């Protein structure tokens, strides 16, 4: 029975008991097992893998934002000693399928190397393969491409203009998709309002910028028909998409997940890299390695994040009750949309934020421009939306002259209304928003914070307090694919775990994904330990490759804590069931009369009668004569779990259950600003956070800290900018400014726990924590300071010193107007 895949119907959501406080290993401080190897410099990354005979790739990139490729001259490069081959887009296209588009845009062909035309500066035009990376770069300089420049478009608001140059003329428009939704009693709720506040805001292009750029190495074994791939990936369906593009069966692609990934938070997709290197490895019959350098990564790695223009309107009554919200958003996908426009759909599952608003309108447009492609970034579109909503909430508070915390508190969904169905059809699982706000007020010592703000102001500087109260939807299936393109009819996004108890009783958990620093090994060991009652430190966690593993969709949207957590729970249940069956047989009682109690099986009528772990394991593996008749030997289980609340397509009006679990966070931050220079100093930072049951407190704390640092980067520093000529301006860390230890203040954090009823132990997602609210909070603090000093709020991120300087001066134009 045990090695079969188990029918999900054996797991029902209501079955999870409320177990807060009764855990043995969960929520306890315990070492994070991955940290040791990273701190010791003993991680094993793609860059560390190099089979004998490996050759290296460098890329010839387009210097033009938009140009026809007239011809490519390769001879000089091919003549250079050490250069093995040069691959052009035409050659690659002849032997491969285009990369996958998730929108229904058949005329928009996305390929690893440009074919016929280039559509952004930095786009890959040819790949040079040589004996070393340095020689490949020498060869790339010798590839002569004759371009005929075409008009280009960089500004997404111009891209929608019918007069704008077309990025993909065959598609006939720069608009890739346009969806409009209205849910609830829009007219009635607008009537009930006495006023509304509208804020235009700009979330400029940034990303999660990993320390490790994308890397991939592929080796084709022609005698086994097997393409081995090691890649720095966090990508659902990477193996099957590489196979599809290479026109080989997916069981001929073996992706190894036991490599460390040096940062991702969504961006390590690398599908074009994988196809290019896989193709070269098959053609050249030698291992081929491509590690992007920072310039290739930043200008042409297709890993930029959301690039959005928002208009958010909140209608409200004179007492400050929100009645309706409208969000218009224009998202600049760059040249090839791929998966990125789906990020417009995730926010539909949290379209009203934590607020009790019974109607909503959402108008979303995705456009192409002559920029490198966008990809999934931490939160999949939620953080920008949270920022835009919170900016509008602050505007309502200003209009009403009402305290921003009280306005939020007044509109929070109260705890007794959960599960709460928002107008777009999603139910929030649980939440105690006012309690988290109270926690934040206490953690920040709000009274003291206000005194400090006022004393800074009295000293002649500017100071402001920022507030953000934001949701983090977690654990979703991929139903946003269906929302943005009805032809995508995927309704589950499974995750799996194998648990093995070997003949000595040692426990191994096997997962089939790579991790990018999210501490999955710690998480899996802790959950398996908790379920089976064994010390997590003794549980081995290993990673199967894509052929020997099982369905897994990669860690996106905190799916590991939620969906993998579910799989672990069900797999452990099956192990326990088998152990109880053996135990019952030994004790001569019925199965129902037994209990599994911390590794032993006990007769519940006489707890002194028990069969201990070692004996149970020995029977299962070696003593058929003691097994119940017909039992399969061994203790080995795989469970494949659905996402919670999945299984339904979106209704025609777009209502759907998007994500199952909703974490929540409140930020309070004090910003001090030098009025002469516009320089911002974040002097106090407090967060109260609720992700349900905490699995490992140090991992959660790390996530909240890192996500907050990331959000501070978005608010103040990070931008992938382009000039009018379409040239990228942020091609290195000189200009793409990541916040460092100097810029990120001490963060005081407190945890609140509202368990989710939908997960094995009440856990929710934390992979996007901190990032959900930090940009909104920091911008809010600056705007509080600016408005108090008679300036205008700045509604465009990142907020630079010169923006603040401008906002304080009446003559210069405001970025809010220009956005």
């Amino acid at each position, binding site marked *: 029975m045990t090695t079969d895949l188990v029918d999900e119907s054996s797991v029902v959501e209501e079955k999870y008991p409320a177990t807060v406080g009764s855990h043995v290993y969960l929520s306890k401080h315990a070492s994070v097992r991955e940290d040791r190897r990273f701190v010791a410099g003993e991680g094993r990354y793609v860059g560390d893998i190099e089979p004998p005979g490996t050759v290296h790739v460098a890329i010839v990139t387009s210097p033009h934002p938009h140009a026809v490729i007239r011809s490519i001259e390769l001879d000089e490069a091919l003549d250079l000693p050490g250069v093995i081959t040069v691959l052009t887009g035409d050659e690659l296209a002849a032997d491969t399928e285009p990369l996958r588009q998730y929108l229904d845009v058949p005329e928009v062909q996305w390929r690893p190397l440009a074919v016929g035309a280039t559509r952004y500066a930095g786009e890959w035009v040819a790949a040079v393969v040589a004996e070393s990376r340095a020689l490949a*770069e020498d060869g790339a300089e010798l590839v002569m491409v004759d371009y005929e420049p075409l008009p280009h478009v960089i500004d997404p608001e111009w891209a929608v203009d019918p007069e704008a140059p077309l990025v993909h003329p065959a598609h006939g428009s720069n608009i890739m998709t346009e969806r409009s939704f209205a849910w609830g009693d829009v007219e009635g709720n607008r009537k009930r309002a006495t006023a509304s506040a509208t804020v235009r805001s700009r979330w400029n292009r940034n990303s999660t910028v990993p320390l490790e750029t994308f890397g991939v190495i592929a080796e084709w074994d022609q005698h086994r028909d097997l393409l081995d791939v090691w890649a720095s990936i966090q990508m659902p369906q990477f193996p099957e998409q590489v196979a599809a593009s290479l026109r080989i069966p997916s069981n001929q692609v073996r992706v190894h997940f036991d490599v460390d990934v040096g940062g991702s938070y969504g961006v390590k997709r690398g599908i074009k890299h994988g196809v290019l290197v896989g193709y070269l490895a098959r053609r050249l019959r030698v291992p081929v390695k491509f590690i992007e350098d920072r310039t290739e990564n930043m200008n042409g790695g297709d890993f930029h994040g959301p690039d959005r223009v928002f208009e958010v309107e909140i209608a409200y009554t004179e007492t400050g009750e929100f009645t309706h919200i409208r969000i218009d958003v224009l998202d600049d996908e760059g040249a090839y949309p791929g998966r990125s426009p789906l990020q417009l759909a995730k926010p539909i599952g949290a379209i009203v934020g934590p607020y009790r608003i019974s109607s909503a309108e959402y108008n979303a447009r995705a456009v192409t421009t002559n920029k490198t492609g966008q990809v999934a970034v931490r939160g999949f579109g939620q953080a920008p939306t949270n920022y835009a909503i919170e900016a509008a909430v602050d505007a309502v508070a200003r209009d009403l002259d009402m305290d921003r915390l009280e306005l939020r508190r007044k509109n929070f969904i109260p705890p007794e209304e959960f599960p709460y169905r928002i107008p777009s059809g999603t139910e929030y699982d649980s939440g105690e928003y006012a309690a988290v706000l109270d926690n934040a007020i206490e953690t920040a010592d709000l009274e003291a914070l206000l005194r400090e703000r006022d004393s800074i102001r009295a000293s002649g500087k500017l100071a402001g307090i920022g507030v953000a109260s934001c949701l983090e939807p977690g654990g979703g299936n991929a139903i946003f694919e269906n929302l943005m393109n009805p032809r995508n009819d995927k309704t589950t996004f499974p995750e799996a775990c194998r648990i093995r108890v070997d003949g000595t009783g040692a426990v191994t958990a096997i997962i089939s994904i790579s991790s990018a620093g999210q501490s999955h090994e710690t998480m899996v060991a802790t959950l398996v330990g908790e379920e089976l009652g064994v010390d997590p430190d003794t549980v081995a966690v290993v990673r199967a490759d894509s052929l020997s593993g099982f369905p897994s969709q990669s860690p996106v949207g905190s799916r590991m804590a939620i969906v993998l957590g579910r799989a672990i729970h069900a797999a452990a249940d099956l192990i326990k069931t088998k152990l109880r069956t053996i135990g019952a047989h030994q004790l001569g009682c019925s199965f129902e009369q037994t209990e599994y109690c911390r590794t032993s099986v006990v007769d519940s009528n006489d707890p002194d009668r028990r069969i201990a772990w070692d004996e149970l394991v020995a029977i299962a593996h070696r003593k058929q004569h003691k097994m119940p008749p017909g039992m399969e030997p061994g203790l080995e289980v795989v469970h494949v779990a659905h996402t919670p609340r999945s299984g339904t397509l979106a209704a025609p009006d777009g209502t759907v259950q998007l994500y199952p679990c909703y974490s929540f966070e409140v930020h309070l931050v004090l910003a001090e600003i030098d009025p002469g220079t516009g320089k911002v100093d974040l002097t106090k930072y407090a967060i109260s956070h609720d992700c349900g049951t905490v699995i490992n407190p140090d991992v959660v704390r790390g996530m909240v800290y890192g996500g907050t640092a990331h959000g501070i980067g978005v608010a103040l520093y990070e931008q992938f900018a382009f000039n009018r000529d379409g040239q990228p301006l942020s091609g290195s860390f000189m200009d793409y400014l990541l916040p460092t230890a100097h810029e990120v203040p001490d963060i005081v954090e407190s945890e609140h726990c509202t368990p989710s009823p939908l997960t094995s132990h009440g856990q929710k997602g934390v992979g996007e924590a901190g990032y959900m609210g930090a940009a909104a909070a920091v911008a809010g603090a600056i705007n509080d300071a600016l408005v108090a000093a008679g300036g205008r709020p700045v509604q465009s991120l990142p907020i630079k010193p*010169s923006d603040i300087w401008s906002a304080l001066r009446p003559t210069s134009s405001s970025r809010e107007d220009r956005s």
Partner: protein
Amino acid sequence: MKPVDFTLHQPTSLEEALALLADHADTAKVLAGGQSLVPLLNFRLARPEHLIDLGRIRALKAIRRDEHRLSIGAMATHTSAGRSNAVLGSAPLIHRAVPHIAHQAIRTRGTIGGSVAHADPAAELPAVMLALDATIVAVSHSGTREIAAKDFFVGNLITTLQEDELLSEIRIVPSTGRTGAAFLEVGRRRGDFALVGAGTQLRLADDGVVKDIKICLTGVSGRPHRAEEAEAALQGKPVTQELLDTAAESVRDSVDPSDDLHATADYRRDVAGTLVARAIRAASDDAHRVTKGECT
């Protein structure tokens, strides 16, 4: 991001270095810490065939002072200059500027001579040397030249150093009396090239009036900038708010900054004046502290 192939030379004496430079003048670059040159090599913006590393020439690392002259060897690191009492005592502006140079790791490797020869108008030391009327000593196989700083910096990353010359030493006339200094910057992050930087060194005469004032700015034009009109506004007068405002305005009138991703020209122009006024005030306070014998 791999450099074009080059030959690395690591001479142990100045003579050896000069001979190598004479042999390869038009295809060589001198490596003096590498904190700017190595990235330029990796970006392939610099493509020398020969790289002559001065790191093993001990004589170039010395910092010396006598009554008439502070001498800083080209290969003295930022850190060693920042810690030097000779520098603090005779050119406190250098001492104040050093902590603003990038980050500690870069200050440990980067050198005074390397920064001055690189002549980045956004960097601290070229502007400081201009304000201090430093003398740049250039040597080649055929002899030694002394170049006044005002004649040394020509443009963005351009100096009057010849292909076969290397910068061996920087000489500064030591300050005297109640001298104070300050260096202020605004950057988007700490350690970045500043959007604008301003440094001031001044001496307070017995009657409290300003003497020997030197004001420099970074990031406000295509080359290191000295604010001579602002200096003139303060020279021989006591520091007052009115004069500070005058100095700030004259700076705003005299600079020619540009727009870039990180700040507008208007912003840089205004903040340049603001920082100069603050720097003069801070340098004056520093000079007062010297009088009181407080440790700086």
